[in-house]
C-alpha cells in the first residue's frame, strides 16, 4: 500500500509549493467549516478571524500591542545571545567552566523554568525589566548549551592539522574552533529566539497585562473570540516568520557543504 501511494503522489510531490498551497487552503477550509458548525461558541470561523485581524491591523491595535511586546523580546534575546554565547564558549574552552556550568544548564534546559515566571514580579515588578527577565530565563539554557556543543565538537582532524602547522592556542581557537562551531552557535540563537517569544508571551499572560498577551486575555474576557484568535494568530505568525528568516539566513551562511564533516 505504501508503494501505491508513493507512485500516485510521485507527480504531485515534485511540486512542493503546490502541495504547500493546497495544504494551507485545506486547513483554512477546515477552519471555516469548524467555525460554521460550530465546534463551540468559542470557535470563530476563519473568515471572522481574518476580518478581526485586518481591523486590528488597520486601527493600530496591533501596532500599539507589539510596541510593548517586541522591545523586551529583542533586548532579552540580545542579552542572552551575547552572554549565552560567551558563556557557552567559555564552557567549551575551559574545563573548570564546563564542570561548573554544564550540569546546571543541562538541568535548566530540561526543566519547566516557566514556573519561576510568577516570582519575577517580586523583584522586577510588572514593567519592562520583568519581561526581559522572563525572556532571558527561557532562552538562556538553549543558547548556552548550543554554543558549548559547537565549541566542544571541533573536528579533531582539523585541530591536529593546526597543531602540526604550529598554531598557538589563540590561533587554534580563533581560526579553527570558532569557525567550526559557528553553525551550532547560530542554531542556538535561532532556538533561543523561539523560546524568547514564549517567555514574552508568558510574561504578558501571567504577570504584566500589556502587549499582545493582554490583547488575548482581554478579548477572552469579553468573549470576542474572533479578536482573540486573531491576536493569537498574529503572534504565531510573527514568531514563525522571524524564526524561519533566521533559519534561511543560517542555511545560507552555514551551508552544509561548508560545515566540517
Amino acid at each position, binding site marked *: 500500500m505504501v508503494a501505491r501511494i508513493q507512485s500516485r503522489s510521485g507527480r504531485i510531490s515534485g511540486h512542493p509549493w503546490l502541495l504547500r498551497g493546497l495544504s494551507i487552503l485545506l486547513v483554512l477550509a477546515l477552519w471555516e467549516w469548524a467555525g460554521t458548525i460550530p465546534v463551540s461558541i468559542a470557535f470563530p470561523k476563519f473568515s471572522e478571524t481574518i476580518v478581526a485581524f485586518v481591523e486590528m491591523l488597520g486601527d493600530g491595535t496591533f501596532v500599539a500591542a507589539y510596541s510593548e511586546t517586541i522591545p523586551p523580546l529583542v533586548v532579552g534575546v540580545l542579552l542572552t545571545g551575547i552572554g549565552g554565547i560567551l558563556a557557552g564558549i567559555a564552557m567549551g574552552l575551559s574545563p573548570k567552566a564546563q564542570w561548573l556550568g554544564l550540569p546546571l544548564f543541562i538541568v535548566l534546559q530540561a526543566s519547566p523554568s516557566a*514556573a519561576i515566571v510568577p516570582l519575577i514580579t*517580586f523583584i522586577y515588578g510588572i514593567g519592562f525589566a520583568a519581561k526581559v527577565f522572563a525572556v532571558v530565563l527561557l532562552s538562556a539554557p538553549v543558547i548556552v548549551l548550543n554554543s558549548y556543543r559547537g565549541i566542544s565538537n571541533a573536528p579533531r582532524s582539523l585541530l591536529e592539522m593546526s597543531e602540526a602547522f604550529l598554531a598557538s592556542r589563540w590561533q587554534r581557537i580563533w581560526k579553527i574552533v570558532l569557525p567550526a562551531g559557528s553553525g551550532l552557535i547560530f542554531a542556538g540563537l535561532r532556538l533561543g529566539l523561539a523560546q524568547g517569544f514564549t517567555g*514574552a508571551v508568558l510574561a504578558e499572560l501571567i504577570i504584566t497585562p500589556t502587549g499582545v498577551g493582554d490583547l488575548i486575555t482581554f478579548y477572552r474576557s469579553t468573549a470576542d473570540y474572533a479578536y482573540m484568535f486573531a491576536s493569537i494568530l498574529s503572534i504565531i505568525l510573527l514568531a514563525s516568520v522571524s524564526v524561519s528568516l533566521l533559519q534561511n539566513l543560517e542555511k545560507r551562511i552555514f551551508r552544509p557543504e561548508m560545515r566540517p564533516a
Partner: protein
Amino acid sequence: MTIRGYRIPMAFSLLVWCALWEVVGRLDLVSLIPPFTEVLGAAFEVIPSESFAEAATITFQAFGIGMALALVVGIGVGIAMGRIPAVGHLMGMWVNIFESSPLTAIVPALMALLGFGLPTMVVTVFLFSVWVIALDTQVGVERVNPSLVEMGRSFGASNRDLYSKIVILAALPELLAGIRLGLIRGLKGVIIGQLLIAVVGMGYLFELYSRNFLMPEFWALLIVVFAFAFVASEAVAYFERKVSFYATSR
C-alpha cells in the same frame, strides 16, 4: 575537574551551586531566596501533604495522557512524513511552524474552548510535544539507509516487518532524541497550562505559595518538578546512549 589528583565528577558542581544557594539565603541577599536547607526542610513537609498528592495526581494524569497521544500521533505522522515525500511536504510546513511557535499563546484559546480542567491540560501537553516528536521521527526515518530497506524486501519482509524490524530500529537514535525533547516540552506544557488555568494542579500550588510568600515551599515544589523533568529526560537519554553505538555506522 581534579583537585590534588582526585577526579570530581561533574554532577558535584550542582552541590557547589547548592552551597552558593545556602550562602545567598543565609545572608538574606534576596528576599525571594531562602537558604537551601530551609527549602529542603520544606520539601519534607510539602511532599507528603495532601495538596501535593492531589496536584501531582492531576498533573501526571494530564501529562501521561497527553504524552501518550503525542507519541502515537507524532511517531505515526513522522514515519508517514519520512517515507512518503508528499506527506512530508504537506505536513512539514505546519509541523515546522508550530514547532518553533510560542504555543503558550494558544492556551487561553484552549481554556475558552475546553474549560479549566483535564481536557485543556491534555491538549496543551499534546500540542507542546507532538511537533518535535514528529519532526525528529521524520528525520530519523528519512535517514534510514535505503539499502537496508531493499535488503529487507529482497528477503521477503512484509510491510509490517519492514517497519517494525528495520525502519524503526534504524531511526531509533533520532526517534529517542525526539521523544526526550517531547517529554521536556510536554512537561513545560503541563506546567504552563496549570499556571494559566491557576486553579488546578502544580500551577495552583505555585500560585498559592507565591501569593502567600511561602518561599521555602515554593522552591521545594520547584525542585521536585525540576528533579522529575531531569530524571525523565535522563532516562530517555540513557536509552539514546545505548543505541548510539550504531548511530554513526548506519
